[in-house]
């Protein structure tokens, strides 16, 4: 059309087309977006959040909630042979459509106009909100979602404030037990179908669906089935209202009291990014945190719920010294002095250290420094193999195997069998065990350890090894300490302290420092990281703060996270925004 005589002054459409972009006018301002961008994403990128319920970038877009209605316009089609009108900037005039379109399932095109404000759009939103609230119960004081509920938020922003509806509300099942970890309240459901699509598309266990029609539409689980997938709690995360809530978090605490701490999961080598929600010194829940290179926005239930041991009865809260077969509480100073003096009596070859793949890089580094100082062999780690699933859980259940390889060098798990035989032979007289229960998890028998003159256990919870130990040192759990770990894909990530350690428990690195692994005046884990970065080439030029909340790739491993592979395939096929 106009391409033939635009040699001197290129039109905006040609300039954009050169980069594979299209020009879109949003609320009167022109922007450029890649072809195929959803209208809702385009608006979000320029700071215009379009309210929505059913749309989720990681799921398909059925466009059934109608909340994201916006006004759209295209240039009028000119008569054949007639040049279209252009303004002085080279854009064609926009012919606004009299009816709205949904922004979530439509893509942008050249010279398109979008209005996210204006009378038509506001009327639409108000109308949709009114329809959604017709049958919605006034449960907010009871509902766990209150405070993070999209319906509440959009009601304040786009609702009318008062109901015009005088008839009885439709009654549906409440407090339905649909699975071991999820509770369903059908009256609160606004039929966005996010949970149904999640179970179908991501968890690959399509047990949820709608029955009945119209105002009686009811979310149900398939007859004879349960919502018992190991990813079921993600449905509670994505539910925009309080229809699906977590049994574990049910009525525990209102969300507005909770403090969010970004951290990472330590239950397997994937290193899922998490947010720890705490009030005071108590963890109330853990939810996945968005990271497209690790866990997308999901996490498995088994990992999410594994935090109750932190304030359980089994926690060790003060150092213990065994005297006459009985443990007695002791101060840190006494236990560390006793330990140091006992180690001094040993010969270098008689001491061995077992560390853990659940320790951070800094702690592993210090345990190696301690081994150098004592003159014993490098610390050995205990391998922890489980079953991988097809999504996020890795077979390696140690979160920091890659980090241990970088820090300690070689295969950190290799030395365990030779160490075992050395202990049986009596060649090793003193064994320091950090963060591992070697009787339960490494196949050591009580009789194996009987020949030791000194067994030290540093662990957060009581266990058979601690019972057998001469000195027990209480340590911090993953939520109580800071540090860094490297996941199976080689990504260096950061743990953050969400709560203070229970009782007198201390960080492993502080214990290692007090045993002489590093200068006594080291008080910050940042300094330990810097000392480590000077020795480990992968971490050179890095500091703890440079890692950021999304992590950094420090080594190539070729590890594939299956969920991400699946998600990228769906994105390439255009099924999801991603």
């Amino acid at each position, binding site marked *: 059309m106009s391409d033939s005589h635009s040699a001197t002054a290129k039109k905006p459409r040609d300039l954009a087309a050169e980069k594979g972009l299209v020009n879109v006018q949003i609320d009167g301002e022109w922007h450029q977006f890649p072809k195929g961008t959803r209208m809702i994403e385009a608006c979000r990128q320029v700071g215009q959040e379009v309210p929505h319920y059913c749309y989720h970038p990681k799921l398909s877009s059925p466009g059934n909630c109608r909340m994201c209605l916006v006004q759209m316009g295209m240039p009028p089609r000119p008569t054949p042979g007639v040049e279209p009108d252009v303004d002085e900037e080279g854009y064609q005039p926009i012919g606004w459509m009299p009816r709205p379109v949904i922004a979530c399932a439509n893509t942008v095109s050249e010279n398109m106009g979008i209005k996210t404000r204006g009378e038509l759009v506001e009327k639409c939103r108000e109308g949709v909100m009114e329809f959604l609230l017709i049958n919605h119960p*006034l449960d907010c004081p009871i509902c766990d979602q*209150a405070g993070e509920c999209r319906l509440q938020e959009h009601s304040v922003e786009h609702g009318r404030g008062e109901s015009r509806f005088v008839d*009885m509300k439709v009654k549906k099942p409440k407090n339905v037990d649909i699975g071991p970890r999820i509770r369903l309240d059908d009256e609160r459901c606004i039929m966005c179908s996010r949970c149904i699509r999640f179970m179908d598309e991501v968890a690959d266990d399509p047990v949820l669906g709608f029955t009945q029609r119209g105002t009686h539409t009811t979310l149900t689980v398939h007859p004879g089935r349960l919502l018992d997938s190991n990813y079921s709690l993600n449905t509670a995360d994505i539910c925009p209202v309080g229809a699906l809530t977590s049994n574990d978090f049910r*009525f*525990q605490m209102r969300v507005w009291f909770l403090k969010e701490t970004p951290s990472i999961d330590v239950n397997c080598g994937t290193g899922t990014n998490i947010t720890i929600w705490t009030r005071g010194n108590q963890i109330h829940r853990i939810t996945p945190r968005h990271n497209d290179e690790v866990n997308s926005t999901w996490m498995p239930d088994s990992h999410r719920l594994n935090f109750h041991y932190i304030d359980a009865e089994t926690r060790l809260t003060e150092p213990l010294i065994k005297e006459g077969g009985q443990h007695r509480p002791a101060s840190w100073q006494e236990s560390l002095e006793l330990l140091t003096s006992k180690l001094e009596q040993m010969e270098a070859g008689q001491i061995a250290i077992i560390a853990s793949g659940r320790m951070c890089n800094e702690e592993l580094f210090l345990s190696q420094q301690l081994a150098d100082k004592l003159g014993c062999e490098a610390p050995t780690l205990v391998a922890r193999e489980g079953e991988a699933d097809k999504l996020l859980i890795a077979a390696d259940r140690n979160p920091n195997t890659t980090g241990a390889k970088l820090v300690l060098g070689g295969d950190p798990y290799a030395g365990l069998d030779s160490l075992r035989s050395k202990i049986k032979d009596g060649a090793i007289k003193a064994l320091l065990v950090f963060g591992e229960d070697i009787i339960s998890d490494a196949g050591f028998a009580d009789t194996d350890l009987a020949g030791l003159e000194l067994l030290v256990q540093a662990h957060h919870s009581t266990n058979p090894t601690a019972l057998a130990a001469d000195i027990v040192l209480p340590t911090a759990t993953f939520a109580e300490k800071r540090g860094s770990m490297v996941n199976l894909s080689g990504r260096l990530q950061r743990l953050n302290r969400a709560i203070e350690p229970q009782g007198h428990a201390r960080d492993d690195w502080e214990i290692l420092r007090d045993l002489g692994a590093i200068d006594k005046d080291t008080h910050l884990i940042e300094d330990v990281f810097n000392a480590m970065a000077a020795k480990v080439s992968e971490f050179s030029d890095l500091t703890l703060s440079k890692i950021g909340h999304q992590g950094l790739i420090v080594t190539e491993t070729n590890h594939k996270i299956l969920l991400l592979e699946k998600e990228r395939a769906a994105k390439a096929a255009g099924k999801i925004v991603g």
Partner: protein
Amino acid sequence: MAIIKVQRPKLKFGEKIYLGALIRGFFLTMRHAVRTILGKSVGAGTLKSSGTGVTMQFPEQTWDDQLPEYYRGAPALVTDEEDRERCVSCQLCEFICPPKAIKIIPGEIPTDDKWAKVEKRPKEFEIDMIRCIYCGMCEEVCPEQAIYLRKDYLITGYSREDMVHDKKKLYEIGGKRVGLVNKWNELK
């Protein structure tokens, strides 16, 4: 801002030595003493004092029936006409409380309970009366009309623990309050 200089009042000699004022004050006191003995002091009847004057013999005598309708005393929880707990432990009062006097531990109503429909009630509800400033914000914010400021002002105790009102004590002070709350029926 303009500065206004205030002139010191010029006192006469009689005023400067205060003697006249002292004598006038003496006679005023004596007049009240006599009127008190005769039982004619100001408010002797209306204030229901001991009869010998305006002084109230607290705590044998109290001013309870003189308290205005809007008096803000101890906050307390109320039950409805069927003795159901109105509070659903939404924790808005805990959130709004300026001195952080309220502590709630939420709990679930067991499904075999007669009023299980409401699902939630406080497991523990504590108000620390040492902290409470009687501002009434808890009453104002409560969406279930479950907490009210009563006229109780005699909150005493021998220890800090005594001064913490637990759930039992709060319902004891609060008593019953009738009025429509829709959460137990099918209307909400």
